[in-house]
């Protein structure tokens, strides 16, 4: 029997506002416990929430980016439950009329070895405040409460159950992760909890039209855990069903150490949150002009950019997708292409290949790449105009990297005179310029033919390999600086004489 896995994700993206969603306290990570909890966050008697406009701006941005509907009015509601790190005894969230309804995210999935696009529909995205943190260690039978995180703005983005494998779920999560960073609403830092996923997983027989009973796995804070948790959970459910059992609707927790999910609470003891509109906050009216204002600040979206790269630069879907994985790489790439518009593909290969590799080794990203697009473009121009070979270019780039690697400046923030002609300097200083003087090359070829009569005979006897050996010898004699195409041409001509 074929089983189909059905997955929907709820993603909590922490919005990148300076202050909290309903108070003026800072949202900066890592302060001493409770140092960033003001009276409103502590829920002192008499305090009241005031909505942070910046949080709404960011929610609207997401709504526009996914083509969702922006609700006006939108309503804040209280979700009532007791927990020590929930100071008011209720969380301000949204229930009916969230800021964003609908919309979709397109993802690239691999199926039968082929890349194709799939659309994941969104149910909604709503604003809410985060709770504080309970610290159970270090307090000898007591619990420590840190309310720094209490009131941090979150956007909960809820998908339809449109994913059919853990791999798809991961691609969707990564695409969304890249999107929220792209539009600048969330820093995406998963270690600090800025981007967390809850996965709703169910299984059913292939082709069945009703969904199976689902379990929700809470708080997955890495893509790897997301994948493993879904895989484990799907296996668990399939085993139960194949043994003739039934699935209990549950909330479960993933334990990465044991690689398993554990029941946290079942539907029977699910709480009644007694949602009702928060009387302290008026219905949120979002005017057309507010939406227009946010829209004007929205960058070109990755999807649009991907299409443009394919269309205007002639890149493959794979390359276009890799170069739009985040805004930093796309921005860097476009700056290189601007200097070398005649060969976007060459630029793409180098940005995705060598430069990515160098950055990776340093644990850096494109936003603080020390090698400037101009420097790279000059190097690539020297390949194009035949000054150096691709192979020498790799050597030159290595030397360029060594030169710029340790400087504190990045391509966006330079502190002194630019050495934009760094590639030329290295080529010049080390005499790496390709020998394109045909007289000099003919002389070298003549010498190699004279010294390798055996290979010459083999070649004349029809052995193609012998030709390559001769090319190698010429290149060696030229210390790698000979133009390979030219060497080929002269060698062929000379041997044919």
């Amino acid at each position, binding site marked *: 029997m074929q089983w189909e896995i059905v997955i929907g994700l709820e993603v909590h993206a922490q919005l990148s506002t300076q202050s909290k969603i309903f108070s003026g306290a800072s949202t900066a990570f890592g302060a001493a416990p409770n140092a960033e909890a003001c009276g409103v966050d502590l829920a002192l008697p008499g305090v009241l929430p005031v909505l942070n406009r910046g949080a709404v701006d960011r929610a609207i941005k997401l709504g526009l980016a996914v083509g969702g509907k922006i609700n006006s009015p939108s309503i804040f509601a209280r979700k009532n439950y007791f927990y020590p790190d929930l100071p008011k005894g209720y969380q301000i969230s949204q229930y009916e009329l969230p800021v964003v309804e609908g919309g979709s995210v397109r993802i690239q999935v691999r199926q039968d070895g082929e890349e194709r696009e799939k659309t994941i529909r969104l149910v909604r995205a709503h604003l809410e405040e985060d709770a504080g943190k309970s610290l159970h260690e270090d307090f000898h039978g007591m619990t420590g409460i840190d309310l720094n995180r209490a009131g941090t703005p979150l956007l909960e983005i809820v998908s339809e159950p449109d994913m059919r494998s853990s791999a798809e779920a991961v691609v969707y999560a990564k695409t969304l992760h890249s999107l929220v960073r792209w539009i600048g609403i969330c820093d995406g830092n998963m270690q600090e909890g800025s981007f967390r996923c809850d996965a709703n997983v169910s299984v059913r027989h292939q082709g069945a039209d009703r969904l199976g009973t689902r379990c929700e796995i809470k708080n997955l804070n890495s893509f790897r855990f997301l994948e493993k948790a879904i895989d484990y959970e799907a296996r668990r459910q399939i085993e139960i069903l194949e043994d003739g059992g039934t699935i209990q609707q549950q909330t479960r927790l993933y334990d990465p150490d044991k690689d398993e999910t554990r029941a946290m609470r079942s539907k029977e003891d699910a709480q009644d949150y007694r949602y009702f509109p928060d009387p*302290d906050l008026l219905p949120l009216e979002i005017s057309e002009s507010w939406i227009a204002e946010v829209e004007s600040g929205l960058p070109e979206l990755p999807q649009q950019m991907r299409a443009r790269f394919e269309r205007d630069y002639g890149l493959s879907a794979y390359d276009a997708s890799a170069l739009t994985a985040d805004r930093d790489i796309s921005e860097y790439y476009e700056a290189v292409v601007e200097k070398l518009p005649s060969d976007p593909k060459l630029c793409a290969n180098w940005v995705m290949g060598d430069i990515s590799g160098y950055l990776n080794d340093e644990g850096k990203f494109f936003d603080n790449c020390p090698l400037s697009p101009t420097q790279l473009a000059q190097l690539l121009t020297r390949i194009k105009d035949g000054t150096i070979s691709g192979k020498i270019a790799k050597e030159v780039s290595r030397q360029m990297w060594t030169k710029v690697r340790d400087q504190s400046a990045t391509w966006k923030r330079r502190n002194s005179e630019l050495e934009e002609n760094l590639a030329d300097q290295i080529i010049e200083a080390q005499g790496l310029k390709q020998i394109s003087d045909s007289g000099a090359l003919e002389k070298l070829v003549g010498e190699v033919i004279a010294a390798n009569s055996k290979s010459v005979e083999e070649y004349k006897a029809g052995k193609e390999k012998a030709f390559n050996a001769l090319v190698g010898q010429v290149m060696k004699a030229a210390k790698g600086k000979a133009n390979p195409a030219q060497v080929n041409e002269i060698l062929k001509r000379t041997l044919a004489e």
Partner: protein
Amino acid sequence: MLNSSLKQLSALLAARKISSTELTGAFLERSRALNPAYNAFITINEEMSLAQARAADMMIASGRAQPLTGIPIAQKDIFCTKGWLTTCGSRMLSNFISPYDAGVVERFNIAGAVNIGKTNMDEFAMGSSNETSFYGPVKNPWDSTAVPGGSSGGSACAVAARMAPAATGTDTGGSIRQPAALCGISGLKPTYGLVSRYGMIAFASSLDQGGPMAKSAEDVALMLNVMVGFDVRDSTSLQREPEDYTRNLEKPLEGLRIGLPKEYFVKEINDDVARTVEAAIAEYRKLGAKTVEVSLPNTKLSVPVYYVLAPAEASSNLSRFDGVRYGYRAPEYADLNDMYRKSRAQGFGAEVKRRILIGTYVLSHGYYDAYYIQAQKLRRLMALDFAEAFKQCDIIMGPTSPTVAFNLGEKSSDPVQMYLSDAYTIAVNLAGLPAMSIPAGFGKNNRPVGLQIIGNYFAEAQILNVAHQYQLVTDWHMKMPDPL
């Protein structure tokens, strides 16, 4: 001096006939004498009051005095007051020294007023007799066997007994107007959104509104000038041009159309109250006003609607009192849930628990639509009733309370009887309208009767004008009990 108006006191201070320190001292002395018997104040802090008085004297000396500079004002213990015990009448906050000032308290501080003490109140403002206070009931200064009304009973008692020239109150379903009526003083509940709720401990957020309590309409107007103002920290606060609420006091009432809701003059109203209110209305006719019968057909539903909505909001508002961060925590408990249970069981009184239970129930899954949503719809209908009535009249009048002050203990075991004592005041809160109660005479056992004046949205200046003109031709507001 004890019976002087705010204007008179202000003139005495300005002319340096008396200092704020002396004035404050005089009222403190009266409180020392009367408060043990009447229990109007939960906290009196002579040192802090006198320090404020000295600062006020310096303001006056340097020519920076404003109308209320140097005048002692009693603050209902629902307003967070920095450095003062702020209990809200509850054991739950019996150890809570507020680290900050409510918006209203800030405005009085800026005006140079002196905080003369924190007044007693029904616990978390839930009550109509002041008997639910953890600090014991307040006595009515006209008759110490009677309740002062509630929840702002301490403020009403303090003003009526002349322990303070004026006081703040809050009104969720009548909590300013009903005690004002029962204690024979003037009190106004403003249009919802005019007075900041920041720092005013929430009972039912969509209904709560702070307002002044004083001897006369003129005093109330001066208090209102200080209390009203936009506060960015309260999202329901209204941003409007400031107005001077004394500006219309002297306008004649010739041609005023007074609406008398037929639902307010029914058999539930006691004869003594009915007679007194009718006499007051006759006085208005003499002043040139005309009366017209109007109808508020949904008024009869106001008590049940209120007792769905207010407890719903309260059940959530009071969740923060969990013993975790501040306030009362049970001395012994087994685990977290036990701590919540015991702290809340011991920290809250019976009436508060009753309303938390009702509120939790009406918000519960399966009941929300039947109760909460239904009540919200009726709330809207009640607002429409008033809108309709105001097409035929400028102002609405009726009794504030169906009875004069009842005896201590008389209704405390019958919550429904207690709730009905707010039958004429609640609809006003549900609609968000401004309304006032002024003394109109005396009923049974020589206990005061209040006349309620309801205006349209933002018609505070008109209400005060209507009240003041009556007080120019009557002296009920000048009558003073003899509590000594």
